[in-house]
């Protein structure tokens, strides 16, 4: 009975995902995939996605490690705040970032050093970064939770500093967690819509990433283009999940 129930939902999901391929004709895809707008959007998505993912991992690794290994004053607070965006609506997160990077002293200072995040391509990266970071931190923390701290104790007793131990022992042992975290972050970055729309704006051929392309073209009634970007996004997420599961099996 439960198996039938499980299959019912799986089947429904599959139909929903399949419909995008059924509705789209090959002709549509062929025409749209090489259109200047799509090429721009795909390229911007890949570039911002890769930069954001690199930044996310650069922060998530040490933060995840710190949350897993150390007890410190205010740890609960840090955990709650860094976790919050997971449950936060993306649009609200975007709005918050827009306000922060707008006419506040933080925004003014960042503008002054040349980092203008509002309605710019840098804003796309910022929006993706803040959306994906909480997921990456969570995965990294639980990865390090699973590594026996005594492995690190031993490395230190053998003469290696805390940092050397992190590089020699913790990082290699967290390998598959890092891969999983990277893949999930990349998928989140590529797929983020709400945060990007509010912070970076959805301007045609300027801050237009794949989800924005889908949104813009739906509103013009240009279904072929919308479907094509939908399919590209789906292929990217499918690949991400595939790599993620492979990494888990490998662990």
């Amino acid at each position, binding site marked *: 009975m439960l198996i039938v129930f499980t299959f019912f939902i799986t089947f429904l999901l599959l139909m929903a995902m399949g419909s995008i391929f059924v509705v789209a004709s090959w002709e549509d895809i062929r025409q749209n995939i090489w259109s200047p707008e799509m090429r721009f959007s795909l390229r911007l998505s890949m570039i911002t996605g890769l930069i954001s993912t690199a930044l996310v991992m650069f922060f998530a690794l040490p933060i995840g490690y710190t949350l897993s290994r150390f007890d410190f004053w205010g740890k609960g607070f840090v955990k709650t705040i860094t976790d919050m965006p997971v449950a936060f609506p993306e649009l609200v997160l975007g709005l918050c970032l827009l306000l922060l990077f707008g006419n506040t002293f933080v925004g003014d200072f960042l503008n002054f050093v040349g980092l203008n995040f509002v309605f710019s391509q840098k804003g796309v990266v910022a929006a993706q970064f803040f959306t994906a970071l909480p997921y990456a931190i969570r995965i990294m923390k639980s990865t390090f939770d699973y590594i*026996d701290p*005594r*492995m690190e*104790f*031993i*490395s*230190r*007793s*053998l*003469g*290696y*500093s805390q940092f050397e131990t992190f590089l*020699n*022992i913790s990082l*290699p*042992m967290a*390998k598959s967690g890092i891969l999983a975290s990277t893949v999930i972050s990349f998928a989140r970055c590529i797929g983020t819509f709400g945060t990007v729309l509010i912070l970076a704006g959805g301007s045609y051929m300027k801050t237009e990433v794949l989800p924005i392309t889908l949104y813009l073209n739906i509103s013009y009634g240009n279904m072929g283009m919308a479907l094509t970007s939908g399919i590209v996004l789906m292929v990217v997420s499918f690949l991400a999940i595939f790599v993620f599961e492979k990494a888990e099996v490998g662990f």
Partner: protein
Amino acid sequence: MSFLTIEDLHLNLGEFFLQEVFLSLQKGDYLAVLGPTGAGKTILLESIIGFWKPNKGQIYLEGENITGLLPEKRRIGIVYQDYALLPHFTVFKNIAYGLEKKEKKKETLGKKVREMAAALQIDHLLHRKPTTLSGGEQQRVALARALIVEPRLLLMDEPLSALDPRTRRDARQLLRRLIQKQNTTVIHITHDLDDVWALANKVAIFKQGRLLQFGSMKEVFHRPQTRFVADFVGATIFEGRVVKAEEGISRINVDGFELVSLDHAETGENVKVAIRPENIVVFKSMPTDASAQNVIKARLQEIMSEGTTCLLYLKINDTVFHVFVANNAVERLNLKEGDIVYALIKACNVRIV
């Protein structure tokens, strides 16, 4: 001056804690740490090695205060019960890991690793990954990894308890040879009294974060200060020499008196003899029927009442051993300190260890 001194150590980790721990060891000492689960034995080792910062107290090694020193500067090695080998390294790399830090020359490094591996009979396993090894092999890799950097102090947390009895005996022999050769000072947590007898010269008993008794083997095993320690250490150990080994019987001279054991030994051999206190029966006058048994005339040095039982300390020449008797037996026999008593021990209860 002591080699290692622990002064008034306090550490509170919630579930596990230590209070008022004082210990001191000389170079080359082998300390066995005994105590029930939750006594704080492991966190004692982990404070000595520097993974926990004590709430109070000082630790000195070779005269230097190391309480605030980073773990990597202390040169103290550790071996865990589950060995904690690095799964992404080969056996060779596991052993070489600590030495790589200071030995940059590839040939010297390789030579030293192979020598250490040969001494521990694991040289045929160097290319393997730790997960493919048996428990005994993993244990020797962990030991090699800790010993190759020549630590000033070696800490071991039940290193032999996950092994089957036969492997454990072999590992114990190997460990003893290696430790004696390097003259390493060792602190070894164990639940197995065989480890204590075979390896240690000092013993510390912990219970609920407190050090109940610390001293040489003789002090702790012959003069347990509390009933808990007496129960925990169990048998009294004597050192003696086999004067005559006959068919099925060994006569052992211990400090001027003779014990008969049913265990086999060679004439002239130096042996350790274990007698459990509950196997000793005390009489006020010479028992009449005592065939094939040991009857030892001793002086009752001290009576310590502990609830429903009494702990009696008996002294023969310079040897002291303890016996448990019921309170009413002390009254019935009218035992007083200074009395001459007779201790009766069956030959089968005199075990050569």
